[in-house]
């Protein structure tokens, strides 16, 4: 029941918000987001006591046998938490902007957060698909209504890309659905089902698993995005308004990773295993390619966009290496990346709104004018570089360790990310924050209270989860073990 409230509160909030007029809308939106955070923490508490109490099932579409079936696993708990933590921060980060038509803007953000939580807790494939697509509409409108100059073309490309991926997934969804055969909940006649447990129990042939794998994987790969499905990403991140970029990079790309973990791996495990090599290779090509491109970027937002591709590539490689280290690393890195990237995009937004540019070369010396920003920027950036004792480190270490167990050469190539990541991040920091103060940065003022209130929690998370990641690792340990058991038993049978 509690999960239901967490799931639907944002939608209700979005509806109410669209009726509000005037400036107060920001505060109301923040209030709802904080309420959502409190609820999410209560869910976390309940999860620790008894996870079973969090699942909920009722009929949704009887004619199709689809249920409103929601369930919280360790991984989804982590992602719900990530969403609930980031949404208030994202809303707070927009306080200094005066967007036209604010009611619609905040309503869309909240609706988006509801759909994201829906994706993470849905245990019925049709429900998952509906939320998956529903998450796209708000972000498309956010990016295309409040974005930059080229927004219309760029966001439409993004929209088409993701929808095309989803439609391939729809074919897979329907196929899986038609393979099931369970008694109808009312009439007890043989019927089909979208239920996760029924889908896992399916006996799919190897060929079926392989094409189903690609039908689902393309959708997930476009969302993440994995090389070569990434071409929408840098443009969209650059053109979207800051809040949109944060939503996209901080939470939405986790939908793809979550999809792989929650749906792809358990249901199509043979296909998953058979195609893992191709995917890992693509992902690692993406890591190196995006890192090199990030070094060449002149625009800070684009730089972080490419760095995001590199990070996600590593996470994806870890997913497909399928061992305990790599999976745990992927899960914790998902959380860390979400927090860091939101922080970085916010800092870029602060710099852009004060100096009017994101061009790395034309900035410099900001730290002299804004020491607080400088310190917080360093902490968050080091998190992204994965320095030990920051939140990026445990994940990256586990990921590389896991990939190494899978294949040493691939791990060596993937390891370049540590060096390249440090190069582009430090280069950016050096050029923007250090050096001589110039005309652009001369009047730079330090952080305001609201900005401080956004960045301090982020920096705190960076450090706390860097020093003590065990809490999150424990949260997802059970899930990871379960996944490994599922995949391994089946792989043994193929061999």
């Amino acid at each position, binding site marked *: 029941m509690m999960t239901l409230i967490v799931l639907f509160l944002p939608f209700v909030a979005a509806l109410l918000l669209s009726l509000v007029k005037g400036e107060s809308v920001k505060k109301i939106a923040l209030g709802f987001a904080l309420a959502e955070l409190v609820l999410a923490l209560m869910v976390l508490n309940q999860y620790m006591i008894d996870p079973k109490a969090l699942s909920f099932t009722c009929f*949704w*579409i*009887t*004619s*199709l046998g689809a249920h409103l079936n929601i369930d919280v696993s360790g991984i989804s708990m982590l992602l719900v938490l990530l969403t609930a933590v980031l949404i208030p921060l994202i809303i707070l980060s927009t306080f200094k902007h005066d967007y036209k038509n604010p009611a619609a803007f905040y309503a869309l953000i909240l609706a988006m957060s509801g759909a994201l939580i829906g994706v993470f807790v849905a245990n019925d494939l*049709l429900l998952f*698909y*509906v939320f998956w*697509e*529903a998450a796209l*509409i708000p972000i498309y*409108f956010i990016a*295309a*209504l409040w974005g930059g100059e080229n*927004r*219309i073309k760029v966001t*439409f490309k993004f*929209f*088409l890309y993701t*929808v*095309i991926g989803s*439609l*391939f997934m*729809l*074919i897979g969804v*329907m*196929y899986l*659905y*038609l393979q099931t055969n369970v008694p109808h909940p009312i009439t007890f006649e043989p019927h*089909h089902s979208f239920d996760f447990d029924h889908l896992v129990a399916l006996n799919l042939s190897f060929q079926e698993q392989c094409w189903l794998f690609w039908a689902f994987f393309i959708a997930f790969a476009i969302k993440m995005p994995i090389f070569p499905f990434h071409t929408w990403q840098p443009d969209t991140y650059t053109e979207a308004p800051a809040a949109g970029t944060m939503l996209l990079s901080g939470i939405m790309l986790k939908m793809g990773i979550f999809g792989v973990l929650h749906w792809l791996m358990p249901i199509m495990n043979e296909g998953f295993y058979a195609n893992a090599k191709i995917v890992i290779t693509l992902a690692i090509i993406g890591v190196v390619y995006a890192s090199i491109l990030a070094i060449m970027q002149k625009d800070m937002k684009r730089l972080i966009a490419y760095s995001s591709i590199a990070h996600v590539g590593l996470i994806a490689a870890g997913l497909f290496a399928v061992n305990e280290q790599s999976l745990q690393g992927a899960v914790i890195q998902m959380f860390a990346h979400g927090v860091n990237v939101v922080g970085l995009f916010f800092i870029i937004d602060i710099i852009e709104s004060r100096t009017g540019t994101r061009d790395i070369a034309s900035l410099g010396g900001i730290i002299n004018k804004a020491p607080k920003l400088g310190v917080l920027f360093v902490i968050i950036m080091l998190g992204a570089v994965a320095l030990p004792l920051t939140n990026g480190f445990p994940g990256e270490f586990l990921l590389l360790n896991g990939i190494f167990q899978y294949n040493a050469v691939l791990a060596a190539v993937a390891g370049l990310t540590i060096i390249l990541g440090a190069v582009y991040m430090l280069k950016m920091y050096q050029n923007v924050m250090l050096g001589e103060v110039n005309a652009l940065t001369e009047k730079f003022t330090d952080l305001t209270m609201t900005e401080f209130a956004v960045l301090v929690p982020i920096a705190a998370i960076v450090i706390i989860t860097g020093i003590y990641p065990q809490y999150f690792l424990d949260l997802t340990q059970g899930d990871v073990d379960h996944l490994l058991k599922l995949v391994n038993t089946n792989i043994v049978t193929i061999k």
Partner: protein
Amino acid sequence: MITLVILALVGLFLMIAGLFDISRKAVFGVAMTGMVAALAGNLYMWDKVPMAYFNRMILIDNYDVAFITAVLGVSMFLFLLSENYFGKIQNYLTEHYALYMFSLVGMIAMISFNNLVMLFIGIEILSVSLYILAGSEKNNLSSNEASLKYFLMGAFATGILLMGITLIYGASGSFYLSGIEQYFTSGNELSPIAYIGMFLVLVGMSFKVSVAPFHFWTPDVYDGSPTFVTAFMSTVVKIAGFAAFFKLFYICFSSVIHYWVEVVSVLVILTVTIGAMTAITQKSVKRLLAYSSVSHAGYMLMVVLVGADADNLMFYVVAYSISSIVAFSVLMLVQEAAGNAEITSFEGLAKVNPLLGFAMTVSMLSLAGIPLTAGFMAKVYILTSVFNAGHGIVVLVAILTAMVGIYYYFKVIIAIYFKTATEERKLFTYNSSSLFKIVLFIGIIAIIVLGICPDIIHNLI
């Protein structure tokens, strides 16, 4: 039966009423009352023992009641938006209403037919009314062209259909569905003329519901006719056409499905592809909707292809009709204000008139099949049943064309929300009465509610 009689009487009454001086409101009131009474008479038949009339030429069971309800409901919905359309008609107002009533009579005969002659009569009553309505803007050249084109092409199709009916009669010795069904299921060797007849009927029906490659009349006729008539043709008429199409094939020819299933699947593939591909390049929203209606006809034809589950057809036509009507009603207002139906006329609509912009967006999302709208559930129902019947290629093609569909539907959404209106267009007043707003509201809510809980109408039949 009583439905048919009421509508026919109201139609006749309205024709005669033209002789007297009757206010516009009264005419509208009579027509609406007639439709409400007909709908009530129709709903009364729900869940009764199937009733036969006119020497069993008409047989009404739940299937027919459901589709007649859809036809009447959608027409009433549309009529609530008719103020601007009927307001502009100077002469022969009552005759216009009478023609709509007669076309409804034709549709009801088409839906509830139990005899191929009745089917033919129904189609003729409907078509003749539509030929006139298509040309009802007498001083507009394209309206005249639409009428003539529709008439010539329609006459051809009718001829082919009649030829098919004759050949089937020649082979089976019966006009009754049960007689034809018996002939086809008897297991005896079938006469070649039965097959030829079946395919001629297929072609004739495909023509009437604008299935490719027999769709060539559609864009010009839809574009040329007054927008209200276009909305009527592409929603109400389509419901009736497919109800008849499905019934005929489901009852008569399902036992020889292996003879026509491949032909129909090719027709489906052609229809969805041609509809979507030609819609891409359209600059006028009206033409775009015309081509999109061809593409949607392909989806409805899939139900015929599967040969089962009338519920899916019902849901699809309702979802499609509501979405289309919302789109057409916005189009009517924009067209009136801007003077044309180009996509550019929609630019910045969301700022100038948020309700119209939002309504159009919701209806485009539904037509494109985006989740949480009725259009998505309709597609899921139909595609799963097609997939289940083993037509994987059809599903694949349908999904690919859905991708194309998203492209052109979103062109309209982009124009509405992300482009800015010219100064001149900002000053347009959209002549939307409160009735109009209520109908748009109901339409939006219906689209979303059906998208979230499709069970409301899916399990009826």
